């Protein structure tokens, strides 16, 4: 490698990457209170939107001046029924007849949270290392493709099959993280652009694969693969009544592993140093290029595991929509969790709850499921702008901002 190429790659993050980096730093170092208030603020604004969208409120508002209390009652009814529906759909269905019915929503929340936690953990490592990886979607797809293929095309003994399939998923995702990593390290290509483009490549590769004999379910014209062998499926951990599978526990273990990696290992030390100040990291003899490649590969591997949770756990077969929008929601999850493992687990569960509550919201409260998307988007908006949250709630500016004195 020529000296010039090295220089270029190390300058790249320090120049055009500076704005991203500053934003990432502001978010990953913002306080918990800001994160919690961002959720609160979006629930409040979400409530207002529900009021405006509700036909009963609109009806009562027509005679607002005659009987204003009617409008308020209708508004209260709309908001409370929406939020209780969300509660019933994601935590505890108190109107269910059996325990299974009552408890299932929470297990659904955890099931939905599993891929979000995996991918969010990977993205969080990247964010703390100063890399804005938008590529979890593609990495999940590649992980699901490779893991799913091992799951349905190979036939291995119990235990080994699952292990090989999970490792295959991880490798698939890791490859899709390695590519933008090495491109950035060696050529300075910006990871945001490269990962976005690789998302398209992965999605279309999957669509193509599902039309080939190797992947398409025999006797079917639909873009779906055969069901993966039961030997390659994550075991259900609460029995047949619930969809919750071993992948969730694996995600929790991964969270612990990421914590150790970032806080207790020499690698994590380097990743954090490169993210917080690449110039000082380089001056101290750290290999910034290697750090970038390693971080992207590890992040991809974790997103690949998210793909395994989908294809070997929840869905059990490869479909064109296997990754849903998990890869993008995981960005929010990682940001909301301030890129810390514990935060990511909690944020993943919150977003899992949002997803799980969708159907109930639609059926019971007759509200468009889009309200969940709006809530999610508002949360991102608020956490991306800590000063806005501080202004709304009249919080003092943090004292760690530079004291000007000379």
């Amino acid at each position, binding site marked *: 490698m020529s*000296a*010039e190429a*090295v*220089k*270029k790659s190390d*300058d790249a993050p320090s120049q055009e990457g500076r704005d991203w980096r500053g934003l990432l*730093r502001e978010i990953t*170092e913002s306080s918990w209170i800001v994160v919690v208030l961002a959720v609160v603020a979006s629930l409040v604004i979400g409530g207002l939107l529900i009021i405006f969208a509700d036909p009963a409120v609109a009806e009562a508002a027509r005679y607002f001046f005659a009987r204003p209390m009617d409008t308020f009652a209708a508004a209260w009814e709309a908001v409370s029924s929406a939020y209780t529906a969300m509660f019933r759909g994601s935590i505890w269905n108190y109107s269910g007849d059996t325990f299974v019915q009552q408890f299932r929503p929470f297990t659904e929340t955890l099931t939905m949270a599993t891929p979000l936690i995996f991918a969010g953990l990977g993205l969080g490592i990247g964010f703390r290392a100063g890399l804005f990886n938008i590529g979890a979607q593609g990495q999940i797809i590649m992980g699901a493709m490779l893991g799913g293929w091992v799951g349905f095309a190979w036939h291995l003994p119990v235990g080994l099959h699952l292990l090989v399939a999970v490792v295959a998923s991880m490798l698939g995702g890791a490859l899709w993280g390695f590519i933008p990593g090495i491109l950035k390290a060696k050529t300075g290509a910006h990871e945001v652009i490269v990962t976005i483009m690789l998302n398209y490549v992965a999605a279309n590769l999957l669509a193509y694969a599902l039309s080939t004999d190797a992947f398409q379910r025999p006797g079917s014209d639909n873009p779906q693969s055969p069901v993966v062998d039961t030997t390659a499926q994550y075991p259900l951990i609460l029995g047949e009544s619930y969809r919750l599978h071993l992948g969730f526990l694996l995600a929790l273990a991964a969270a612990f592993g990421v914590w150790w990696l970032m806080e*207790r*290992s*020499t*690698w994590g*030390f*380097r990743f*954090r*140093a490169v993210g*917080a*100040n690449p*110039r*000082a*990291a*380089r*001056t*101290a*003899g*750290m*290999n910034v290029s290697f750090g970038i490649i390693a971080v992207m590969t590890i992040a991809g591997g974790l997103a690949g595991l998210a793909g395994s949770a989908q294809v070997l756990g929840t869905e059990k077969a490869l479909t064109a929509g296997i990754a849903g929008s998990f890869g993008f929601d995981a960005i929010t999850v990682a940001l909301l969790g301030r890129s810390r493992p514990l935060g990511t687990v909690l944020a993943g569960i919150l977003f899992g709850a949002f997803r799980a509550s969708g159907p109930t919201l639609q059926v019971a409260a007759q509200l468009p499921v889009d309200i969940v998307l709006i809530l999610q988007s508002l949360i991102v908006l608020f956490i991306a702008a800590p000063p806005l949250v501080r202004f709304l709630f009249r919080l003092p500016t943090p*004292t*760690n901002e*530079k*004291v*000007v*004195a*000379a």
Partner: protein
Amino acid sequence: MKLELKGITKRFGTFTANDSIDLVVEPGKVHALLGENGAGKSTLMNVLFGLYVADEGEVLLDGKPADFDGPGDAMAAGIGMVHQHFMLVPPFTVAENVMLGHEQVKGAAKLLDLEAARAKVKEISDRFKFDVDPDAVIEDLPVGAQQRVEIIKALSRDAKILILDEPTAVLTPQETDELLSIVKDLRDAGTAVVLITHKLREVQAVADTITVIRRGKVVGTAEPTASQAELASLMVGRDVSMTVDKDEAKPGKVMLTVDDLSVVDEEGIARLKHVSFNVRAGEILAIAGVQGNGQTELAEALLGVVPTTAGTAMLDGEIITDKPIKDVLHSGMGFVPEDRTEDGLVASFTIANNLILDLHDKAPYAKGMALQPKVIAEEAEKHVEQFDVRTTSIEATASSLSGGNQQKVVLARELSRPLKLLIASQPTRGLDVGSIEFVHKRIIAERDGGAAVIIVSSELDEVLALADRIAVMYHGEIVGIVPPDTDRDTLGLMMAGAHEEEAA
């Protein structure tokens, strides 16, 4: 115009930057505001200039209370300020910069009246013999001339009171002398000048009144006849030695050999041109020069941060150019970067972690891949104690430290392993007198311990205090290597490009 500050108090959170400060500035006088970095001088002037609102106290102009709501008001009232970092638009001409902010227009089309601005620049420039061309583009001008443009800007708005914030930090000794004579001329023309500085020599040269500020308080006033030692002890609050005690150097074998080293930057501009020299064990080679003449590139090329385009450097018989930075550090080079906040520290990391930036994956700080938090903490406690880092905890972030204490952390890290060569760039920039003394002692101790030392400094006082030999750089070349007893004028001329023979 007479300016009075009465009981000015300015707090940032719990930190009191200015504590009921009183100050009287008379017209036609130079009032020096002397204090260490962080003493609160700039804060005070920013209050005066309307950039900060004081929590308590008032500003009086000719006895009348003045309430400034931003720099615009201050300028309208006749206060001009030349900031440490110039507020000029680099691609604009001098006249355009001077006009900026109060543009005059002419005719029905409201075109900019550039003629009026040019005439004004010319008039002021001639009056004070500034020698500034109104049509010159700022980025083409040397720093000293840019500073004069700032002064013209202030005067063009009829400033009766001119505040100069650390004006000589970026100037060569000759430019400094020119500036000081300009200050005298302005004073004689009736302008009140407030000179903010921590350089004692300048204060003695031009000040009529001296007010010393320490930790946000006025701690005393002094006559310009006061000795440097008196002023320094007022400033620091205790007796400080103004000279560095050091024994004669006992140079040993050649430790570093630099041969024909060249650096070309990304734009293709040669920053370092065929530089050759050597440094022996047990001696300090100081590299003098005005900032931006290749010193930074030289230091960074030796470490390997900047790629070299030609030549070699050999450390104790081994070629280090084109080795990875990690290997260079481990072969015995200590590196104190010029910009400690950008290159020396990770601001958001704890002090303990900053102390192991380079050694984090070596025993005893790591076993395999696992960091050893206990060892890291113990070692950090030791270093903090040894290097007198003033902090509440080793878990405090580096950003919470003052500049002097940040520099002590960098030094503690770099000097905590056996060194063959120490390179320290601007080791005391922005440090208070007390910290400077400490840093200098440590550097000399390193020399006496047998390491070769390279000091890059744009402060001539520092170069003269530490050097066993002085190399002067100009435009990427070493114009000469001279003994430490070379006089200031000769060094000054060499810093402007004259070769040793011409300068002497």
